[in-house]
């Protein structure tokens, strides 16, 4: 058991260092900073609705940049591992495929979390600067976002075990879009045939349903989020990611290197 944890920790530490030092990441973060400043400007022309504009656009920006960072770091890392065969160093040692997959997962999650935290700090400063005080509920929204990113990382890793790195990036983006629109899909076929409705229901339950991770609209209006809801969301992310990573380990072990 100790080896299991030790190896995963070593690999995640390595993955974290490798991804966090990527210069392009800093480019993206600078863009995010510029974006935040821009929302401050937009607030001034919003006819008095400064805080609403800054909070809604700010949280949306953290999300979009977060997705970009996650997908970018995830796919470039996997690309390096598989296409450029950096895995040979690791797998020729007493390291199992599970160690590698989980190590990559936690390392990437750490990098994404640190980047997101950076953006969150800028956001909180901007909101406080405009008289909104300390936006604690926004932190809850960002926590939900990190859960979604964890799921996205697991998804990218899963796709990369059987498809080309470019394709797995595309699939990840597609899943993000579909994952947020599943309830719209269900509504769209509400008047359709029974088979159609069952098929869509099946898709609804199997594909990652990402809408639950978006509480931004509630947070903007200071709604109360129940604890049970948060626990269910955490559990969903955990279980779905575990399933994806387990399948990834299995597929990865079968893959020709």
């Amino acid at each position, binding site marked *: 058991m100790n080896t299991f944890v030790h190896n995963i920790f070593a690999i995640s530490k*390595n993955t974290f260092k490798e991804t966090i030092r990527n210069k392009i990441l800093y480019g993206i973060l600078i863009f995010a900073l510029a974006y935040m400043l821009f929302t401050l400007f937009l607030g001034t022309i919003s006819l008095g609705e400064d805080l609403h504009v800054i909070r809604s656009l700010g949280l949306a920006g953290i999300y979009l940049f977060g997705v970009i960072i996650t997908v970018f770091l995830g796919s470039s890392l996997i690309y390096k591992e598989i296409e*450029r*065969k950096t895995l040979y*160093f690791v*797998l020729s*040692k*007493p390291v199992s495929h599970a160690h590698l997959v989980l190590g990559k997962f936690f390392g990437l999650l750490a990098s994404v979390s640190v980047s997101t935290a950076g953006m969150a700090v800028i956001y909180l400063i901007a909101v406080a600067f405009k008289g909104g005080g300390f936006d604690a509920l926004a932190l809850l929204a960002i926590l939900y976002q990190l859960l979604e990113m964890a799921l996205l990382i697991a998804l990218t890793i899963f796709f990369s075990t059987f498809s080309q790195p470019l394709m797995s990036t595309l699939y990840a983006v597609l899943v993000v879009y579909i994952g947020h629109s599943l309830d719209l899909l269900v509504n769209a076929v509400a008047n359709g045939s029974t088979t159609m409705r069952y098929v869509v229901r099946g898709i609804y339950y199997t594909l990652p349903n990402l809408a639950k991770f978006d509480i931004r609209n509630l947070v903007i209006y200071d709604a109360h989020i129940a604890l049970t809801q948060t626990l269910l969301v955490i559990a969903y992310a955990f279980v779905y990611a575990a399933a994806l990573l387990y399948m990834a380990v299995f597929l990865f072990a079968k893959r*020709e290197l």
Partner: protein
Amino acid sequence: MRNLTKSFGAYKAVDHISLTIKKGSIFGFLGPNGAGKTTTMKMLVGLAHVTKGTVRIEGKDPAEHATRERIGFMPESPYFYDHLTGHEFLAFCGDLFHTKRNTDNDYLDILKKVGIFEARNYMIKNYSKGMKQRLAFAQALVNDPDYIFLDEPLDGLDPIGRRELKKIITSLNREGATIFFNSHILFDTEELCDEIGILHRGALLYAGPIRDFTKGRSLEERFVASIEQLS
């Protein structure tokens, strides 16, 4: 190795190789490009799945973790994590072993030994090809292995580098390590090896002492002759 075979669909990359390597010797695996040398080595270190046949190191399967604790592997044309320093990379590799615990000094010693001590805190993306080659060699040594597998170890090194690494290989062998390496540089092979194996299109043409193969002529002559004989 016994009847070791590796197929990709209908294509046989490695076709029923059987050979035994003596513990404590230096074995050179030769063959033209595409002969299947790297594929064979990948099976030896547990990186590739064996389609048919068996491979054993001291009676144990390299696919098991415990076996890999005692081997070192240097891949061909290595690619690295660009944003790590040489020292960090080496420490990471060492960290993945459990029976040998290294101190920082151990890593520094290895870096000195392979000649990249000065560059230890620079990011790997700034390393030259020769430096990367030396680093790849260094990480094969972090666990003080009994069995060392090297895939084209002298590739891309200048003559001084080649001489240094050859010295290290011979000294490791004197200390008791068994060394198996792939090469298509015949001159170095002649110098280093006790025994050789020749692979062509997946099939083993010869395996045994180097003297018996060369029979007085140069290795290169004999090698080219046997390959051409088959074509």
